[in-house]
């Protein structure tokens, strides 16, 4: 799905800037931030996530707008399920398990 998921960077996992733990509405997962290495991503920054990769750095306000948009479209729970489904990183503490659901390409 083209609609990207907003998440907040919790911490960076490696010096090369490939991976970070992100928080999406309370669900914490590892994502790849390699596409934003020229943007200087740091903890507390908001990013748009698509299939496990951060695509764009966005403002706090844009992140709230995007979350509201996903809710209005009825896609918010699917978004959380997608993020819950990312399994390539180590699980961060305080994770919440999400049910399986259809993932989307875009």
């Amino acid at each position, binding site marked *: *799905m*083209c*609609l*990207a998921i907003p998440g907040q960077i919790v911490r960076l996992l490696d010096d090369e800037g490939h991976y970070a733990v992100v928080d999406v509405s309370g669900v914490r997962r590892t994502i*790849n931030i*390699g*596409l*934003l*290495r*020229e943007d200087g991503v740091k903890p507390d920054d908001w990013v*748009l996530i*698509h*299939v*496990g*990769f951060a*695509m*764009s750095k*966005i*403002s706090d306000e*844009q992140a709230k*707008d995007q979350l*509201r*948009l996903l809710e*209005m*479209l*009825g896609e918010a729970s699917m978004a959380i399920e*997608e*993020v819950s*489904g*990312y*399994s*390539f990183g180590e699980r961060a503490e305080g994770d919440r398990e999400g049910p*399986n*659901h*259809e*993932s*989307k*390409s*875009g």
Partner: protein
Amino acid sequence: MKYVDEFRDPALIRKTADEIARVIERDRHYRIMEVCGGHTFSIYRFGLQRLLPENIELVHGPGCPVCVLPMGRMDDGLAIAARPEVIFTAFGDVMRVPGRRGTPLEMRAKGADVRMVYSPLDALKLATENPDRQVVFFAIGFETTAPSTALTLLRARSLNVDNFSVFCNHVLILPAIRAILDSPDMRIDGFIGPGHVSTVIGARPYEFIAREYGKPVVISGFEPLDLLQSILMLIKQLNQGRAEVENQYARVVPWDGNRPALRALAEVFAVRPFFEWRGLGFISQSALRLRDEFAAWDAETRFSVPGVRVTDPKAAQCGEVLKGVLPPNRCKLFGRECTPEHPVGALMVSSEGACAAYYHYVHAMVTAGD
């Protein structure tokens, strides 16, 4: 316009809708194509057509990745999935797309090892966890998704994971737009440019549409207000006889795109001389394949596939709908033989497909009102 109150900035939405109504030329018909499936979904979900004057027609474009995938490619992927050593992985929206022998989900029911993943990196991880199996990722998507596949392949190479491969179906949006512009039955006045594809490629590559074809393009966000503002910007350009690329979604889309993403695409992929699009036929330079340096991770090199071209059912008019020549409900199969539960064409499979979106949000309402 009572339902507008649910949206953010209802006052601004009303003002924008009013301004559209004020600036349109009454005796002119405006045909505007939204290229991206996410926009199609948003437009139907929010019922935006109801906020527009009758002489503005929104036409749904080819920007839904599973919708444009020809059945022959699905069959090739499923032929690989049927091999006993293979773990076949794909995104969830691929799972219900029918090939001639059924969908990936049906293949799984018959014993194939088919697994849904949320990220190509999940597929790569499966490969490292199952060294005695062959893990194949069925890659699909436009420029939004292709960089993720590229970074995953670069990772597979640096980790030397030799039991992982990609069946690449990535397609490019600009050649598809050009094909639509070159099509003799195409009558589009302007384009709503895709949002997230453009975060990768930027706004600049759309300039040929304005320069060579004299048609305006406005790259748009996904909220109701974004889409209405973009439509207003297009109407103003058309009324003033301008054809430019404007960026309504500048808060996310940089003019020159995402450099690391474009570098990764260039490093991993080459452009195929031609590729078949469902409904649109063969389009030159419109899809990606793995570069020869990545042949070891190319499922098309590793496995032999039938490579047979399969034509869609004759009665299905997916091509006309994809090109915007026919509205979804005017297809002979719509809502009868072809429904979201039993899709004949791929436009009915994905929630971003024009037919599924129309079925869920227009057809359902009309039927309920009977």
